C-alpha cells in the first residue's frame, strides 16, 4: 500500500510539472508572437489572432510567426518524446537521436541532395528534395547503427558507441562535402545543417501535429512495457513484456517523430537529449517519462527559438546553434554539480 501511495504521489508531481511547464511554454510562445522586426504590440497580436486586424498584420502574425511558434512547441515535444524513447530503450541518459547518428545522417542526406541538384541544374535543390534527402539519410543511418549494434538484441552502451562511430564517419564526410561546394551553397547547406525554424510555414506544422496525434497514444499505451524493459530484458520478459517487439515499435515511432521535425527544420541538437533528463530531475520521477519530457522539450525549443531570433537581431541564428550551446552547457553543469551513480 505504501509503495502504491508513494508512486501515486510521484505521478501527481509529474503531472503538475507537465501541466505547469506546458502552460509556461505556451505563454512564452504567445509572448514571442510580439517579438520581431515589425514592431507589433500585444494588442496587435491579439487582434490578428481574433481576426480583427488589418491584412498585413494578420499575415505577419498568423501566416509567418504563428506556424513557427506552434512548430517550436510541437517540434520540441516531438524531439523530447523521441529522446525519451531512446533513453529508455538504451537505458542510458546519452541515448538520443543525435548520439545514434540520426541527425548527422539527415544532414548527409540533405547535403547529397543539394550536391546532386547543383551538379545537374546549378540550383541548390528544392526544399522538398532536401527534406526527403534528410529523411532518407536519417532513417538509413538509424537502421545501419541498429544493425551494427545488433548482436542477439541491442544493448545500451553498444548502440551509443556504434552511433558515435557512425556519426564521426558521416561528420567527416559532411565536412568534406562542404569543402567541394561553392561558398554560398556550402554556407546555406551548413545553415540548414544547424537546424533552423526560419522557413517554417503551416505546411510544415500541420504534418507534425498529425504525427504527434497518431504517435502519442501508441507510445502512451506502451509506456508500461517501456518501464519494465528499463529493468532489463529478462525482468521485462518475466513480467510479460516481449523485449524486441516492444523495443522495435518504440524505436520506430520515436524515429518517425524526430524525422518529421528534422525533415522540416534540419537537425536540432540536444533537445532530445536534455529534455527527458531535465523533466526527470524536476519531477523527480525514477526514470524518464513521456509527457513531462514533451512539456520540457516544448519549453526548450520555444525559448531557444526566441533567443535565436533576438540575440543578434535583425539577423537570425539557426535555433540548433542555440540549443547546442544551451543543452551542452546544461549537461556540463549537470556533470559538474551532480553526477551521482555515474548518471549526468
Amino acid at each position: 500500500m505504501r509503495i502504491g501511495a508513494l508512486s501515486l504521489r510521484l505521478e501527481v508531481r509529474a503531472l503538475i510539472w507537465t501541466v505547469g511547464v506546458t502552460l509556461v511554454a505556451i505563454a512564452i510562445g504567445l509572448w514571442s508572437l510580439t517579438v520581431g522586426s515589425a514592431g507589433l504590440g500585444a494588442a496587435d497580436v491579439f487582434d490578428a489572432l481574433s481576426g480583427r486586424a488589418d491584412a498585413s498584420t494578420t499575415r505577419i502574425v498568423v501566416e509567418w510567426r504563428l506556424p513557427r511558434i506552434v512548430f517550436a512547441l510541437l517540434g520540441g515535444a516531438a524531439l523530447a518524446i523521441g529522446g525519451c524513447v531512446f533513453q529508455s530503450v538504451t537505458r542510458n541518459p546519452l541515448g538520443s537521436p543525435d548520439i545514434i547518428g540520426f541527425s548527422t545522417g539527415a544532414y548527409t542526406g540533405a547535403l547529397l541532395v543539394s550536391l546532386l541538384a547543383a551538379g545537374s541544374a546549378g540550383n541548390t535543390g528544392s526544399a522538398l528534395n532536401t527534406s526527403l534527402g534528410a529523411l532518407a539519410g536519417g532513417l538509413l543511418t538509424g537502421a545501419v547503427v541498429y544493425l551494427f549494434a545488433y548482436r542477439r538484441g541491442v544493448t545500451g552502451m553498444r548502440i551509443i558507441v556504434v552511433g558515435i562511430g557512425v556519426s564521426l564517419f558521416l561528420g567527416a564526410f559532411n565536412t568534406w562535402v562542404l569543402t567541394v561546394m561553392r561558398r554560398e551553397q556550402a554556407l546555406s547547406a551548413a545553415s540548414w545543417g544547424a537546424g533552423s525554424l526560419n522557413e517554417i510555414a503551416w505546411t510544415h506544422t500541420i504534418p507534425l501535429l498529425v504525427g504527434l496525434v497518431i504517435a502519442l497514444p501508441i507510445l502512451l499505451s506502451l509506456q508500461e512495457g517501456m518501464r519494465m524493459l528499463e529493468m532489463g530484458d529478462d525482468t521485462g520478459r518475466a513480467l510479460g513484456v516481449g523485449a524486441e517487439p516492444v523495443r522495435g515499435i518504440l524505436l520506430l515511432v520515436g524515429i518517425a517523430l524526430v524525422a518529421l521535425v528534422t525533415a522540416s527544420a534540419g537537425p536540432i541538437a540536444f533537445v532530445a537529449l536534455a529534455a527527458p533528463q531535465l523533466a526527470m530531475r524536476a519531477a523527480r520521477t525514477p526514470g524518464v517519462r513521456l509527457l513531462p519530457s514533451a512539456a520540457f522539450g516544448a519549453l526548450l525549443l520555444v525559448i531557444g527559438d526566441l533567443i535565436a531570433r533576438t540575440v543578434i537581431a535583425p539577423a537570425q541564428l539557426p535555433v540548433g546553434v542555440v540549443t547546442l550551446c544551451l543543452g551542452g552547457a546544461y549537461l556540463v553543469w549537470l556533470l559538474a554539480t551532480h553526477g551521482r551513480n555515474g548518471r549526468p
Partner: protein
Amino acid sequence: MTLADTPGLAPPPVDAGARRRIAATAAGVGILVLLAVASLFIGSGAIAPAEVWRVLLTDDGSPTALIVREYRVPRMLLAIVVGAALGISGAIIQAITRNPLADPGILGVNAGAYTAVVLAAAALGPSLSAGHVTVALAGALIASLVVYGIGTTGPAGGTSTKLVLTGVALGAVLSGISFAVTLTMPEVFDKVRFWSAGSLQNRQFDTLWTVLPFIAAGLLIALLLPRALNALALGDDVAVALGARPTPTKLAAVIAVTLLCGAATAAAGPIAFIGLMVPHALRSIVGPDQRWIVPLSVIAAPILLLSADVSGRVVVSSELPAGVVTAFIGAPVLIALTRRKGARGL
C-alpha cells in the same frame, strides 16, 4: 584484444613477447621509412621518380624542385610529427582515464583547439596560419582542464562514462559556438571549412617549424610517463600503495596532451580516431605495458596518418583530406571494437 587487455586487467606479459616486440618495432620503423619516401613520389603533379630524386639531391630552382622540396617534403614531415603527437596523446589519455574508447577527438580536446582558432579568426581576421598555434594551445588546455576537472571529480569521478559524457557535452557547446560564429561570418566560414576537415594539404615548412617545439616538448613529457602510467593502471589506490603519485602523473599527462593536441590541431585541423586506433592496435601486438605502447605509438601513428594522407591523394582526383580518410578507417574500427565478444562492458 578485448577489454580485458586494458591496462591493469590483463595478466602480466610473458617473456616470449619480448622478441615479438622487438620485431614489431623493427617492422614499424621499416614501414614508416618506406611510406615516408613513397609519399615524396606520389602526388597530383605526376613527376617522374627519377626527377624527384634529382631535385631532392640538388635544388635547381625549377617548379618541380619547388613542389618536391617546399611542398612534399614538409607535408611528409608534418604527417609524421602530427601523427606522432595524436597517437601518443591517445595512448596517454587511454592510460590515465583507464578508458579504452578515449581519444582526444572524442574527449573534446581537439574541439577546444578548433573553437579557439575560429574565435581568433573571427576577432583578428580570417588569415588562418600556423601563427594561431598559441591560440589553439590555449583552447586545447581549457578544454582538457574542463573535461578532466569535471570528469574526474565528484561522486562518479573518473568513471569512463562520466569522462566521455563530459567530453561530448563540452564538444557540443564548443561546436555550437564555432557554428554560430562561422554562420554569421561568411569569410571565416569559407576559410575554416577547408581546415576543419583535417588536412595536410599545402602545409609548408613554416607550419612545421611553428608547431615543432610544442610537439617536441609534449613528446618529451609523454615519453617520461610510461612507468607511472603502468602504476596508474592498477587504480589510484593501489598506485598510491605502491609508492606512485597519481596527481603529478595526471597533471603531466594533461600538459603533454594539451601541447600535443593543440599543436597538431593548429597544424592540420581536427583529426580524429588516430589516438583511438593506434593504442588499440599496439596493445594487440605488444601487450598492455605502457613502456612499449607509448614509445611505439610515435612510430605507429605516423604510419597511419601518412598512409591516410597518401591514399587521400590517390583515391579521389580532388584529394580527400587526411582527417576524412582517418574517420573512414577509424569509425569501422571503433564499431568493431564495441562488437567484440569480450567487450561486455559496452
